[in-house]
């Protein structure tokens, strides 16, 4: 036991993603623990998060209500009348003993078709101006990178994608749009994303996918899931229009 008596701020050492890492266990509320695995966005931290998240998810413990993976942490929300903070911390500690399997680290690769028509990408020109490259080069760069789903948040199904080429790092809009259509492909700062549902949004819109990103009635409601690898492939307007949605 690694000082689990004091759950706030105690440190444990866990074997995650084949390496031993230091982690901080914080009682975020009377029904949750925040497991902090690092303080930067990095591939190492992402793999640690995914390793812990997948192991916890696989437990399928009815006392655990929700798991919130993020850049370098996992928030565990549980029923405090059935699971104590100490027991929850022990669960995390016990998972450390399990060796991460290849299965844990294997990523699903998802290809998303994107139409970069100017109607769908009203910010393409501004992104090109900001990056001082032609619009065509924005499209080429965006559709040639491989992205990683760090986590989902903001709205149902919204995946935060890391891996945007540095040339395309542009600040978000000063004033968010009140209405961004579902399927809009967007970038902001070092991140890329796709708006899964009609929502407000402050990211720069550069295209749109005809693929349904969020389908609440499907067995797997989100097209992108934590840990997935994502690639964008360009389609023309005719293909977009012909795609049955």
């Amino acid at each position: 036991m690694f000082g689990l008596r004091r759950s706030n701020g105690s440190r444990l050492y866990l074997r995650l993603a084949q390496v031993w890492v230091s982690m901080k266990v914080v009682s975020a509320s009377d029904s949750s623990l925040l497991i902090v695995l690092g303080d930067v966005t990095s591939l190492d931290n992402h793999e640690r998060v995914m390793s812990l998240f997948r192991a916890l998810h696989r437990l399928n413990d009815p006392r655990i209500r929700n798991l919130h993976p993020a850049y370098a942490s996992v928030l565990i929300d549980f029923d405090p009348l059935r699971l104590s903070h100490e027991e929850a911390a022990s669960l995390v500690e016990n998972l450390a003993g399990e060796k991460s399997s290849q299965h844990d680290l294997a990523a699903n690769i998802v290809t998303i078709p994107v139409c970069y028509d100017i109607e769908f990408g009203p910010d393409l020109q501004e992104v090109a101006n900001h990056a001082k490259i032609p619009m065509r080069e924005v499209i080429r760069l965006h559709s040639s990178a491989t992205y990683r789903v760090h986590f989902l948040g903001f709205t149902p199904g919204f995946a935060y994608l890391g891996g945007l080429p540095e040339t395309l790092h542009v600040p978000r809009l000063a004033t968010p749009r009140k209405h961004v259509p579902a399927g809009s492909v967007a970038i902001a700062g070092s991140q890329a994303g796709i708006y899964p549902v009609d929502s407000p949004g402050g990211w720069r819109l550069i295209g749109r996918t005809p693929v349904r990103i969020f389908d609440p009635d499907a067995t797997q409601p989100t097209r992108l899931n934590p840990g997935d690898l994502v690639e964008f492939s360009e389609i023309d307007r005719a293909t977009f229009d012909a795609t049955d949605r």
Partner: protein
Amino acid sequence: MAIRVQDPGLLTTVQDLGRYGYSHLGMSPGGAADSLAMRIANLLVGNAENAATLEMTLTGARLEFDEESVVALTGGECDCRINGDTAPMWQAMRVPARGILACGGVKTGARSYLAIQGGLDAQPIMGSASTNIAGHFGGFEGRGLRKGDLFGVRKGANSRVSTLKPKAVDRLYSREPLRVTRGAQHDWFGVEAFGKLLSCPYTVSEQSNRSGLRLRGESISPRVRSQLLTEGVSLGAIQVPRDEQPIILFVDQQTTGGYPKIANVISADLYRVGQLRPREQVRFIEVAIPDAIQLLREQEEWLKEIFRC
């Protein structure tokens, strides 16, 4: 059996106890903002406590029932009438066939709950019938009710109504400070900032909803001014954005966030957050986590003991 919406009120949504197990896909738990009132409404008409109910915000709905129904209205006090006659809250009552139930304005608190024997016929999506407004799904077509909407009610075969003991809910909505535990980034704030949160009154802003309650009052300055890496947020977290005015994150909150959390409303007091009105004053008091869990345990015991037999 069907119910027609004659007037939806300000915002009336279908809610049960919420959607769990999907926050890693960006799904907030949702569910009744005042889950205690909602559970009592269901128990009064003999429903399972998780049956789908209507949550009405500030202004109640006017509904027409095609068949005789047994209903119960709980939560914020409203001027409830059946075919024009005053009808009591916190007890099961009969609405005759072709009857009109008008819930009127919510006079104290912010939300009232209507349970109908059998439960609303809403398809569970990801394990819950709750309306997810941001995702446009769940409840009734993923949105608040509109005039003319027609929804079904499940048959409540042999459901037995219950009654509350006298004065059982008299002290449910106390004006006492909301109890909080320390938040995930409590140490980013000094003693002075935390002291302010605990000693100064805050006013609930008009820009408050089921996602979060914006508070106005003394500013809370963090001691540490660094950028927080976006992380998961817990229900009832009190986050402090750059304008230093606290926000209580609530049932429809985003699942992740990048602002430091100074405190967290305890589970046993979340139902009271659901009854805070715009312009209402709120105060906070700190409790330790074991005490917060004990208070939740006592609340669950209390809920079992307030019914006659």
